[in-house]
């Protein structure tokens, strides 16, 4: 069984986000980029399935600018067998990504598609669900456990107030939650080997998908800066401030 994993290049989660002066977008100049943490979990899960003998081949796919090849090389170093890049410099929204992935799915015919539940930059949490709808596959979102059993897969989902296990017939779409696994470190010998693994580059045109977005980004603004606290001199002053300034008591 082939497993297809989607990988997104995003700002490293440790980086403090800065907004461009004209508020048109987040400032990405000279900012450290990394693989979306949920995608790392997806890659790890696919590689584990291969190590268990369940998957025969792991294919990593990323949609984005040339630099996203870095994240694909990381996926290859972590254990993916080959990679596909859909090269585009345009901003792509969730629907365009889902359409492009659907085309890749059509070509590759994987038994399982694993995606992060969301990317930490846009936080949309849409692509996996849209891909399932476009391809007609079943979906198991927010997975904390994935067990392939013959022609089906049992996905344990993290839901409000507990866990839910769904059984999907293959092929299926799974999106990963934080607790699914702990991603491994890229070993230096594997990083060297990853350079020799195949990486195909395709374009949205070749796949016959228009990436034109129906969504326009109007404005990005940082959250209001937190006001510093103050020290009050007496209980009376505290009560007064809570009443008249903070208005949390009456």
């Amino acid at each position, binding site marked *: 069984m082939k497993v297809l994993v989607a990988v997104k290049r995003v700002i*490293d*989660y*440790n*980086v403090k986000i800065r907004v461009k002066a004209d508020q048109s977008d987040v400032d990405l100049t*000279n900012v*450290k980029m*990394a*693989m979306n*943490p949920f995608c*790392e979990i997806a890659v790890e899960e696919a590689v584990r399935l291969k190590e268990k003998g369940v998957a025969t081949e792991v294919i990593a796919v990323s949609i984005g600018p040339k630099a996203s090849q870095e994240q694909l090389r*990381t996926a290859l*170093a*972590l254990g993916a067998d080959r990679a596909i890049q859909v090269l585009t410099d345009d901003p792509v929204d969730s629907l365009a990504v889902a359409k492009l992935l659907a085309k890749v799915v059509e070509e590759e015919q994987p038994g399982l598609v694993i995606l992060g539940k969301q990317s930490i930059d846009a936080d949309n949490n849409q692509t996996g669900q849209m891909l399932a709808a476009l391809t007609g596959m079943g979906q198991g979102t927010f997975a904390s456990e994935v067990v392939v059993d013959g022609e089906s897969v049992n996905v344990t989902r993290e839901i409000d107030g507990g866990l839910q296990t769904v059984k999907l017939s293959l092929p299926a779409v799974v999106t990963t939650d934080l607790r699914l696994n702990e991603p*491994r*470190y*890229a*070993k*230096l*010998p594997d*990083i*060297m080997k990853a350079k020799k693994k195949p990486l195909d580059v395709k374009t949205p045109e070749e796949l016959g998908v228009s990436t034109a977005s129906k969504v326009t980004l109007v404005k990005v603004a940082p959250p209001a800066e937190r006001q510093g606290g103050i020290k009050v001199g007496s209980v009376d002053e505290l009560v007064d401030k809570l009443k008249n300034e903070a208005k949390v008591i009456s």
Partner: protein
Amino acid sequence: MTAHDELLTFLTTTLGPSGVLCDDVDIARYRIDWAGAQGGIPLAVARPATPEQVAEILGYCHRNDIPVVPQGGGSGLVEAALPDRDTPELVISLERLNGIRHVDPINFSMSVDAGCILQTIKDAAEAEDCFFPLTLGAQGSCQIGGNIATNAGGLNVLRYGMMRQLVLGVEVALPDGRLLCDMKALHKNNTGYDLKQLFIGAEGTLGIVTGAVIKLFPRPQVTRTALIGCPDVESVLKLYAQSRRSCCDLLSAFELIPRICLELAIEVAPDLPDPLDEGHPVYILMEVAASGPVNLDGMIEALFEIGIENGWINDGVLATSDHQAKQLWRIREAMLEGQQRRGEHLRTDVSLPLSALSEFHHRAQLSMEETSPECTVIAYGHVGDGNLHFNVLPPPTLEQEAKRSLLHELELQLFDIVAEFSGSISAEHGIGRAKQAPFLETLTAPEHEIMRGIKRQIDPRGMMSPGRILPATHD
């Protein structure tokens, strides 16, 4: 009124009631340091909030022959900042003198109060797209004044030097109550004796640093962190020399971690990674950083190829995200905690020429095992600086008294070997009280004479941190 009452009245008048502590509960935390060493009961704890107040207190103590000891964040390792156990001293804590005075991103400098927490300084530098390189385990609590007084080292010395190299100017309250102000933010200043260097590393014996101008650097934008498994210390040193060459001298840390330290770290923090498939005798935690778009991955990969070819490297991992890099660095922090948990042990901080380090390591290990076959040697450190923390855990079954004398014997033995290799018994921790005896032994007559002369000149009454570095004078 007794002299003690007079002191308290003076302090309260000068500093206000919140500037003086004398209650047992309030002063408890000034009597203990990070390593758990316990000091005596101080006369009081003074908490001045301005440089002038510090000077004023020193002047008073000078006139009244009251010994004083300045205190920063309490993470020193040689008991220099703890109040004396026999002669009650006045503790002067700089914790309220903690402002950032000015950041200059064009001059790449910052002027600060001595009580500023190191982390606060690093954050303030970063906000101006700059970088202050001093990096220590204690950076969340240690103060820059303490860093200066102890000439702190830490993880980035390899690239940026010790505190001594990072100071452009100082402001010092002198023992007689005058304020010496050399706060020029100059990168070049060749006018006579460089007095500020006298106060750096003086451990509070010549005055109290109240402010400083420190050097900043461009902020590293790209960083790569790798954990590499190596067969032995000799390979590590060859790899070090090659790393500096292959990585265009962009190496910012090169830490030796023996296998046992990794295990100690995981003992403390079981969620830490043991990322290589097999255990290796020694590991290197290495970091390469650049402030612009440089292909660090390419450099590390090329280095790795050379290392494998020559048999210096067994295996290694490269952190793919900042999260993974932080986890690797947590190994370095947690192993110290793990060591601490094993109870009293020999803790050293020796410095050697890098080319002699492997042979020293071998000789010292044999010598320790010969004397005490059941002891465990833990030798880790900033090998890129020739700095080895050659520590020894005694057999756990040993009685307290026997343990003490064994550790003392092992220390003497180790320092003899250090001398043979022309090393130093203190690379970065300093002398304080803990290392005074072996330090005095290594001093030549002219060195001893000049050091005593300097002390006498600046602190004629011997009231500044008496008994630290040099023995207290009683005349």
